[in-house]
């Protein structure tokens, strides 16, 4: 519990995390403004914005562990924060669990605020054309929160393995951009539909490819990927030198 509080406090005080939060709020809201003014509303209004805004969650997940491994501070003199962290919390498993829970909490909060902002924007600009706030919309919004949390943990798990956030961040942010590489792959290889991001997207968008996956199945497929990755990350993290 104290480890969790420490990790939450780190997340709340890292300037870079606030950059991630700003990106996660401004990008989807800004896109919602543009799309509301320029396109006709469809079944994905408000949700396709969140599929791109997930980059805030990715950056947050990467920052949560990447910040432990950088040695760039003015007075770091080559040492990394992870050595201090492991002195304070020697159990690797407990540390990793605390970090995972902290990332999940922070991302869930970020996602809820982002969804509220996007839907407020869409309703303000579109009025009656905006998606109704009924049970279906709330179910999809919950799916979007789960998607953001899982994407943050995906970035987190990859960065545990690489110990450097640049490449996982570049790959995942590129993939959540306007043209996703996995989406292109899925055009020719049906199995690519079961990659974590494409499967998870079924939870809240009506993305249609050659393979139809139910929202719940998609969420479970993505969760399975993330759990497998976190188990691998945990196994590596407990065995190696910091």
């Amino acid at each position, binding site marked *: 519990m104290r480890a969790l509080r420490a990790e939450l406090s780190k997340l709340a005080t890292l300037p870079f995390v606030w950059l991630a939060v700003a990106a996660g709020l401004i990008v989807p809201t800004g896109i919602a403004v543009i799309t509301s003014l320029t396109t006709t509303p469809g079944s994905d209004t408000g949700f396709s914005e969140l599929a791109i805004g997930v980059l805030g969650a990715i950056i947050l997940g990467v920052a949560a562990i990447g910040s432990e491994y950088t040695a*760039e501070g003015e007075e770091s003199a080559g040492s990394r924060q992870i050595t201090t962290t492991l002195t304070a919390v020697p159990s690797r498993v407990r540390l990793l669990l605390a970090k995972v829970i902290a990332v999940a909490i922070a991302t869930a909060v970020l996602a809820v605020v982002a969804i509220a902002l996007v839907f407020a924007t869409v309703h303000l600009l579109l009025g009656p054309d905006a998606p109704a706030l009924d049970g279906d919309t709330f179910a999809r919004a919950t799916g979007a929160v789960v998607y953001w949390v899982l994407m943050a943990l995906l970035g987190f798990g990859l960065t545990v393995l690489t110990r450097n956030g640049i490449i996982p961040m570049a790959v995942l942010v590129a993939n959540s951009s306007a043209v996703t590489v996995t989406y292109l792959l899925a055009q020719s290889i049906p199995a690519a539909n079961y990659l974590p991001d494409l499967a998870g997207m079924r939870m809240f968008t009506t993305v249609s490819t050659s393979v139809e996956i139910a929202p719940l199945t998609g969420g479970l497929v993505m969760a399975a990927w993330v759990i497998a990755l976190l188990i691998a990350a945990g196994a590596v993290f407990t065995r190696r030198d910091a």
Partner: protein
Amino acid sequence: MTTTTDFRTPATAFTDAVRAEASKLWSLPATWLVLGGTLALTIVLSIAFGTSANIGPDQTVNILDYGVTAVTWTQCGFFLLGVIASTSEYIGGQIRTTLIAIPDRITWRLAATVALVPITFAAALLIVATSITTILLTTGVPIAEADLDVAARIIPSAAGYLTLMAVLSSALGLLIRKAIPAAAILLVYLLILSPLLQGQNWYFLPDIASYTLWFASVPDTAPPAIASWAVVLAWTLGLLIPSIIIANRRDT
């Protein structure tokens, strides 16, 4: 007792500084990882675009437009290269050693920039040419059908743009002094914001201005080439000059 005096003129001192900076860049594993990864990704994406392009005999699109499409995505590699070039100084306090060797900050930053340019330009020429070649090979379009005059315009233009963007990224990295935040800012702009703004024809943005320089088909609304170059150059200098002034004023 005899004393030896350093007879280096400012010019030789600057050359030495450039050589030192080039040697650092050259020996940084991250440089080669990023450039190698960019080349590999460019080839993979070009093959993917080439096989899905559906190029028939009655094609209306210029094949060279397909040839450089992959680079619009893999240009990220050049932004990362610039960021790494400047932020690697701050890993483990290497910056202190650097500043003891080259106490003059302005000399240091100019030398680092001069060292970055040739490596980036050569790599960019190679990557853009590879991208076009891969498209020609995968689509089966004979090289004779490609407009070589246009290719001679777009390859150096793309390489020039990518080089300037590496310089810009290195200036941003120096201002932030941390690789991941600097990379995050550039990636979010390049991969998320820029594609969304593509339809707006905002030619005052560096990448959108540059696409009028290194695509075969130039849109009707495009400004003249010299204006596009001015935009790209203004952005580069707009970050480079403040980064040098600030580096000159702060502690490390």
